[in-house]
């Protein structure tokens, strides 16, 4: 179903008028409420009165993940802390996590866009949804929860993990919709078979999968394993969490909710918009958010965008699946991982210098595994195995603390990690996504 036909199917001219109205309100709001942005806008020579329509967005400066880090925790907020009702964090590149906060209206917006996601995937009020994204600081679980509340679905908030229980609850409560990471969906199909259950006879008929990149091949595998429609959801916590864009059953691009999250596809080298259909960095302006509205935020995701009307009736622009990143971030079991986070840990452990390599692998139908190879150094080498194991375990624990996922740490001989142009090749991703 189309949850918000008024905006999702709006005529382009009407949509533009709506966006222009929002932007004309947003810029003075940010300018007068967020000193960091005021400085940014002043520096770019943009005063609020110069913003007359959405086309003027190109005059505005970009916002980057570094800005989020530099102004941690509350520098980019446009409201006082007493107006914040909920806080979420995601991975930062180093040290501090990326923090976002929602006002009461922001949470309402989140519920609205997530209801659109659910509708776009094929949910109708009264459906039962099993939410197997993690609940907590990660936006996945609660984002779906709010959308399902808004639409009026029956919610089974299983959160992630405990596969046998997931499968039992799916059957006992006849859940028609499953929301989780695509790799977990495949893993559960394999587990179901192990438990003597035929996943093609499963209750789930619609899957809403995201939080990590996945391919068409993986979609086909999931669809045939579970005999379901597998759709892709896109979002990032800086913008709202899940709820930025979603595929309809035509699976022909992700409808981005451009009335509230204004998308531009930017050439990361020049900062100029690319022609329609060409690849560039997805850059989003949150037109109506109050807590931490962001102007032209660089998502670092490489996508293309098309503007033609979809067969489903929606007129909203459609973005492609993520084709790459402008940085070296990888996603492991739904968690964003930056090599710099691991570097930070290694530097922090006395005697360790950051010669390391991250190897990500996924055995067939298994969850992602991460191995961090660390070159042993003269300074922390010991003739005693127990001391070496202590160092290895300390590195492992600290990395796990920062990343919130289990890793294997292997000590290797110096100069064995491949260096190209003097720099180590930090990530070896062996997964066939």
């Amino acid at each position, binding site marked *: 179903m189309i949850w918000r036909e008024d905006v999702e199917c709006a005529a382009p001219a009407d949509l533009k008028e709506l966006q222009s109205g929002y932007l004309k309100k947003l810029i003075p709001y940010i300018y007068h409420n967020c000193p960091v942005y005021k400085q940014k806008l002043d520096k770019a020579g943009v005063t609020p009165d110069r913003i007359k329509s959405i086309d003027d967005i190109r005059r505005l400066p970009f916002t980057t993940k570094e800005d989020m880090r530099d102004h941690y925790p509350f520098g980019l907020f446009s409201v006082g802390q007493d107006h914040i009702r909920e806080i979420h964090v995601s991975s930062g590149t180093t040290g501090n996590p990326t923090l976002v906060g929602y006002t009461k209206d922001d949470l309402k917006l989140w519920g609205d866009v997530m209801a659109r996601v659910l509708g776009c995937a094929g949910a109708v009020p009264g459906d039962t949804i099993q939410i197997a994204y993690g609940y907590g600081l990660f936006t996945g679980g609660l984002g779906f929860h709010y959308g399902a509340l808004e639409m009026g679905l029956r919610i089974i908030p299983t959160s992630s993990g405990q596969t046998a229980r997931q499968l039992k609850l799916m059957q006992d409560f006849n859940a028609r919709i499953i929301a989780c990471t695509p790799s977990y969906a495949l893993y559960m199909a394999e587990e179901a078979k192990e438990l003597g259950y035929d996943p093609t006879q499963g209750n789930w008929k619609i899957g809403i999968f995201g939080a990590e990149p996945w391919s068409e091949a993986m979609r086909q595998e999931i669809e045939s394993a579970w005999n379901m429609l597998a759709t892709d959801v896109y979002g990032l916590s800086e913008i709202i969490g899940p709820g930025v864009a979603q595929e309809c059953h035509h699976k022909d691009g992700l409808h981005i909710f451009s009335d509230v999250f204004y998308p531009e596809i930017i050439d990361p080298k020049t900062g100029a918009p690319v022609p329609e259909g060409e690849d560039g960095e997805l850059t989003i302006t949150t037109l109506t958010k109050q807590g931490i509205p962001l102007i032209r935020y660089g998502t670092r995701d490489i996508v293309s965008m098309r503007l033609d009307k979809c067969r489903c009736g929606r007129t909203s622009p459609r973005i492609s699946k993520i084709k790459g990143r402008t940085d070296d971030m990888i996603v492991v079991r739904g968690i964003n991982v930056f090599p710099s986070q691991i570097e930070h840990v290694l530097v922090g452990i006395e005697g360790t210098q950051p010669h390391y390599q991250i190897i990500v692998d996924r055995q067939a139908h298994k969850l992602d595994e991460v191995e961090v190879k660390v070159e042993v*150094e*003269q300074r922390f*080498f010991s*003739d005693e*195995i127990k001391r*070496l194991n202590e160092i290895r375990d300390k590195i492992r624990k600290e990395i796990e603390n920062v990343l919130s996922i289990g890793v294997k740490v*292997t*000590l290797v*001989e*110096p100069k064995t990690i491949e260096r190209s142009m003097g720099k180590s090749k930090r990530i070896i991703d062996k997964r066939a996504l």
Partner: protein
Amino acid sequence: MKITQISIFLENRKGRLYDVCSLLGTNHVNIRALTIAETESFGVLRIVVDKSDLAIQLLRDHHFVANFTDVVAIEVPDQPGGLASILKILADNDVNVEYMYGFVEKFSDKALLVMRFEDTEFAQQVLAKNNIRIVAEKDIEGL
């Protein structure tokens, strides 16, 4: 009267032990005693050689992680209960042995053992007090 052991980090990879031995061999360094401690992914090779300064230089020049470790070499009666008698003395005096291994050669009819202690100084005092012969570095060189 400590002697110097060289400890070398080795990954569990084919040929790594050979690499070390052939490097030392071509440079006329003789290995007197040797042991390997291994885990699933790496091992530590511990050796006593006749020219330890040269050996460690060679190893480090070839990108091995190698350290000097102080160990104690002692003579042990080469007969049933010989080692037990010494270990009893150590245990009675609360001296903990981290690891130990044997020499290839010996001076006399007694076996020659390398021992690594948590507290090397204290262990030496205990051994000396109990008239156990501690072998000096120069004895090793003369082997």
